[in-house]
């Protein structure tokens, strides 16, 4: 029984959403979007509750009392909802933000170093004239694009202004490739949905 209802519910909701295309914000569209928002918030809450149950309460009940500290800091996050004590929420956020920044800046420079190294390897491993040309394009393009993002005019020589035209070409090539890739993603979600409609109706 439920097996048959499922896809039909899905199909109806799909058509409700697509009703936007036919006539803007209909009642059906609003019903579907608010249901969507409600169910997704409900789901997020279920997942987060589970994380806290197993990650904190479970550990404290096993005698690892050190975890009361993050529990309290976590509860402090909710003081954001009050006017008087909202600054307390910053304590927990400070740990989260600080550790993220610390993790990111150390790792990012190392990864950045590895990609610099990867670019040079491309030049070294070249053994044909075309390979060298490709290497030059790679290095020169990267330099041009990095210099595109100069904020102040302190180092900004007239030569850089000329270079920026070249940088834009490289940037546009990058964006063009990204455009092609993003379109693939967008269209594949669309085709999958059309397939779903066809399958539920029993055509494909």
């Amino acid at each position, binding site marked *: 029984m439920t097996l048959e209802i499922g896809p039909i519910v899905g199909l109806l909701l799909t058509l409700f959403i697509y009703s936007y295309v036919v006539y803007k914000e209909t009642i059906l569209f*609003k019903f579907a979007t608010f249901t969507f928002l409600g169910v997704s918030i409900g789901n997020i809450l279920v997942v987060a509750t589970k994380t*806290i149950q197993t990650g904190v309460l479970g550990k404290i009940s096993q005698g690892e009392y050190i975890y009361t*500290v993050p529990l309290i800091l976590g509860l402090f996050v909710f003081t954001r909802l009050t006017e008087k004590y909202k600054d307390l929420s910053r304590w927990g956020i400070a740990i989260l933000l600080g550790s993220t*920044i610390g993790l990111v800046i*150390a790792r990012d420079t190392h990864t950045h170093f590895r990609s610099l190294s990867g670019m040079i390897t491309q030049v070294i491993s070249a053994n044909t004239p075309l390979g060298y040309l490709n290497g030059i394009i*790679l290095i020169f393009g990267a330099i041009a694009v990095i210099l595109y993002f100069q904020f102040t005019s302190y180092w900004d020589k007239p030569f850089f202004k000329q270079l920026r035209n070249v940088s834009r070409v490289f940037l546009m090539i990058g964006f*063009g490739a990204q455009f*092609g890739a993003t379109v693939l993603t967008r269209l594949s979600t669309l085709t999958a*949905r059309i397939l779903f409609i066809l399958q539920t109706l029993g055509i494909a």
Partner: protein
Amino acid sequence: MSGIIKSREIVLGLTLLCAIIMAVNYYVSVQVISTTASTIVSWGVIISAFSVILGAIITIRFHLGRIQKKRGDWLWSIWLIISIIVVYTIGITFTATSYIYQWIIINVLSGLSETVYSLVGLFAITAAYRSFRIRNTDAGILFAVATIVIIGQNIPIGEMISPVIPAFAKWILDYPNVAANTAVVMAELVVATAYSIRLLIGRERGA
């Protein structure tokens, strides 16, 4: 008491301390530091779970306010609150792995999010006709490259016409595209580092 609560220095100091411990831990291998670092990390995981809940509560509070003042789409807000409560109750009482919860996820949540997402696909097609204009050289290069990448890499049409097209698309991806992409990441990294530093010394407007 309220002095301690509001003290910006304590918060900044805590942020800076955590940042330094995490960064130093990456460069050295000392037992004490790595234990401290992994404790901080596990605390961070817990605190972030609470902030996820905070986000949900802020939304719920907003809609409750609308219901109270009967403003805007307040009837829809009631529906929203009802659906949150229903899903949450089912998820907690029957657990997230139960059949009924899975049914809701597969047929309602998954179906709706795929559909809403696929609207962007529809908009991409209308936008292609109505608003993607080759106004200048920049847009011209962008569309030329996009066409080559689509035909050469994303769909098998390119190789049906000539094997040169996929090879050319791959060359574009491998050299000019990688140059631009990597350089952007590097430039962004430097900007982000500066931003983090300003945040750590308390000179950036943050929320």
